């Protein structure tokens, strides 16, 4: 499975990561999924409801997720995953990520260290663990 993230959308995610640093940022990936590929066509920045622990936790506003789904539906697309940042932490899913992950969605993690954005990585829950998928532009 390949995950395609166009360069312009990656740039948008990088901007949101920097704007929110050192707090976590999160949002929704909109696109189209086939048997071999997830093509991301739009990204949405949503509110992090976990204000008290925003440096290392996120809780996506369900109303924002609903609206992102409606936006996707209107475009003939779908919510294909979730993105979030890992400030000063690698782009690998944590146990917290795993415990709250949903199958079928792509989880895109954008690392940012001392304000500098690193290489995002794409994961998907498969059974009890995450499997990484190739990320291409």
């Amino acid at each position, binding site marked *: 499975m390949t995950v395609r993230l166009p360069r312009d959308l990656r740039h948008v995610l990088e901007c949101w990561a920097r704007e929110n640093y050192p707090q*976590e940022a*999160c949002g929704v990936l909109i696109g189209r*999924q086939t048997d071999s590929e997830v093509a991301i066509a739009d990204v949405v920045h949503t509110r992090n409801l*976990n204000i008290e*622990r925003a440096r*290392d*936790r*996120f*809780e*996506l506003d*369900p*109303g924002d*997720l*609903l*609206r992102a*789904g409606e936006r996707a*539906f209107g475009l003939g697309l*779908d*919510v*294909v995953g*979730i993105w*979030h940042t*890992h*400030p000063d*932490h*690698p782009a*690998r*899913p*944590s*146990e*917290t*990520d*795993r415990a*709250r*992950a*949903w*199958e*079928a*969605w792509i*989880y895109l993690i954008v690392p940012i260290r001392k304000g500098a954005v690193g290489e995002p990585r794409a*994961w998907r829950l498969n059974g009890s*663990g*995450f*499997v*990484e998928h190739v990320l291409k532009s």
Partner: protein
Amino acid sequence: MNTVTVRIPMPLRSYTGGADEIAVEAATVRQALEVLGARHEGILNRVIDPSGELRQFVNVFVGARNVQVLDGLATPLAKGDVISIIPAVAGGHHDRLRPMAR
């Protein structure tokens, strides 16, 4: 009974054969979910817990409103209503344990 539409998020479509929308006849949100569960085995357990309440990590909306601010599962439905099952999404890098990727 009114005909309403239940929108299924991608993580639960393995229960609906890939369908993203299911039309059901129901008078309340609970009825709509139960009809959905009767047609698609397994999905009801992902939405409602054994005590009959909404699971902690699932939200249900009627139109733009979360049923939590309406009458919960007893929320009445009108013809044409759209019910959306919205997974509760959370995470974060804080981790006392090692990362769980493989």
